[in-house]
């Protein structure tokens, strides 16, 4: 992956979007910049109202940036209307035309492009086969299930062979099981067609399992861009750490900083080497984060990174969740996978130590 030279499909340069004017003006996007590479599965992840749809609609051409520019394969697309962009969209509520059949929905865009009839019908068949919907070609779209509508929406969007496909929370209306199936299906389609996917979701698990890269957004800003592992293991900001998975926050003091790492003093007085976000030089008091599964409980507190009393031990089948009340008053969560050999070694009230894996600690920017 890393040795390939990445070509940018979409470059978003310093884009802002303001809705309304005067007192009611609202900044939905605030100087957003991001490069989306060719053939990648790129996810915009963030809570409701953070501006995901707004960014997507600008790439599609339904709204225009107040500021900044968007380039598609190096070309500024500001002046291009939606249908002239090599971009297609799968809408949140599918937006299939209810008065047309499945086949007509897929053919409609091609007909508008004045493609020859034979080519259109061949393409429709091909698309139906791709999403496994051939048997329902002549059904009205109101008479098929949500999951099937989803597939038709995908087929319709892929039919004109776009270079980039935008998907706005396409799975949010489906039930859990169907959602899991469609996640795999989408990933398969993306690999098979080689089209760049820009996928919007507010579901962190979905983002982690499907994406090549993720941009975490909050309140109109992109906070962090990176692969699923980067985002999960090395959150740069408190919001990212909190939004994705469970996290322990510890107050610490920076002792020394050297080549992308910092020695920090933890609440109990022990030192640990923590990682830093690129180009970030911390000083003074900072917050250090650690994922619960990157630490272990030990019976002997001597030499451990943290000390405290076990305040709860919860068995949840695959894992056991330990909560340690640290001497500093903070609380620390540890998650260990269960195995048959390992018995119930610890009980509530025990004095224990917590050992962090090498590289488990990450210094937050804020």
């Amino acid at each position, binding site marked *: 992956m890393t040795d390939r030279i990445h070509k940018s499909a979409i470059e978003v340069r310093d884009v802002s979007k303001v809705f309304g004017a005067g007192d009611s003006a609202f900044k939905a996007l605030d100087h957003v910049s991001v490069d989306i590479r060719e053939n990648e599965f790129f996810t915009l992840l963030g809570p409701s109202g953070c501006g995901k749809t707004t960014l997507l609609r600008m790439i599609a051409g339904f709204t225009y940036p107040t500021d900044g520019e968007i380039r598609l394969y190096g070309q500024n697309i500001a002046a291009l209307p939606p*249908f002239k962009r090599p971009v297609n969209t799968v*809408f949140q509520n*599918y*937006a299939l*035309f209810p*008065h047309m059949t499945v086949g007509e929905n897929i053919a409609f865009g091609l007909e508008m492009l004045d493609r020859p009839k034979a080519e259109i019908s061949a393409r429709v068949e091909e698309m139906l086969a791709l999403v496994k919907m051939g048997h329902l070609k002549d059904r009205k779209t109101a008479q098929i299930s949500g999951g099937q509508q989803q597939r038709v929406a995908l087929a319709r969007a892929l039919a004109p062979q776009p270079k980039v496909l935008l998907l706005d929370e396409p799975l949010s209306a489906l039930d859990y099981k169907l959602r899991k199936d469609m996640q795999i299906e989408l990933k398969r389609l993306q690999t098979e067609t080689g089209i760049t996917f820009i996928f919007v979701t507010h579901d962190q698990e979905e983002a982690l399992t499907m994406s090549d890269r993720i941009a975490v957004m909050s309140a109109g800003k992109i906070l962090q861009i990176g692969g699923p592992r980067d985002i999960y293991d090395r959150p740069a900001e408190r919001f990212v750490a909190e939004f994705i998975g469970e996290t322990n926050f510890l107050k610490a003091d920076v002792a020394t900083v050297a080549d992308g790492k910092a020695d920090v003093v933890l609440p109990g007085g022990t030192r640990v080497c923590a990682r830093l976000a690129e180009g970030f030089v911390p000083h003074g008091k900072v917050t250090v984060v650690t994922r619960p599964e990157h630490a272990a409980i030990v019976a002997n507190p001597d030499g451990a990174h943290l000390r405290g009393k076990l305040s709860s031990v919860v068995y949840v089948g695959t894992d056991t969740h330990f909560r340690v009340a640290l001497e500093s008053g903070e609380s620390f969560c540890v998650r260990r996978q269960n195995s048959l050999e390992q018995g119930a070694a610890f009980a509530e009230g025990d004095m224990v130590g917590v050992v962090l894996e090498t590289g488990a600690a990450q210094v937050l920017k804020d």
Partner: protein
Amino acid sequence: MNTSRHFGTALQYAFLGLAAFLSIFPFFWMLVSASNTSIDIIGGKTSFGAAFRTNVVNFFTQVDVPLVFWNSTKVAVLATVLTIVVSSLAGYGFEMFKSKARERVYSLVLLTLMIPFGALMIPLFLMMAKTGLINTHIAIMLPTIASAFIIFYFRQSTKAFPTELRDAAKVDGLKEWQIFFYIYMPVMRSTYAAAFVIVFMTNWNNYLWPLIVLQSNETKTITLVVSSLASAYYPDYGVVMIGTILATLPTLFVFFVMQRQFVQGMLGSVK
């Protein structure tokens, strides 16, 4: 407890019975009277008589039925189609396109609902007279086409039309007018059906304005003809009733044909 429930039910039935009676009796009386002579009708006879044939024959000799029906149908259908196309375009526009003046202009449109027709009658008549349209069907249709109520109805219904459908159509390369005719109209067809029923009935039953602008017998519509029969010096009520029945049939027909769509349209056409 049991008796009080029975009493409640009885009261309900009594009320519904009365309501049914009040709405059905005029129809019944219309049918009965059509089969009686004028003298019997004035005498208050409420059973079927033997004069139906004579009444029909008299009506058809006194009135040029094909011409009158043609006038009414032409005016009602044309005015209805024009009203619906123009007002639905306006309603769609008001909802879909944002501008600073939008709500102000819209309020002005709604404000026109509050002006009683009586206040508009004379200015409208003068306008028609100045433009030489008196005694033409165009004069009846023109003032009805931009209907504030239908604009309001379409704007409200358009709120349920998903913007995503419009975006999807834009991705497919449709222009604004194509989106309206190829996507919006078919998707909103039950809204259109309901509007058609309402507007058609209003136009078909329109009386006061046609009475003012239409002056020659060749242009008159059925409502005018029936009412002129009723206001003759010696009105033949049996003949009037035949006219009334004939005048009611088209609206009944339109309603029954579009009943399902009408109800759907009133409930909101996009589910």
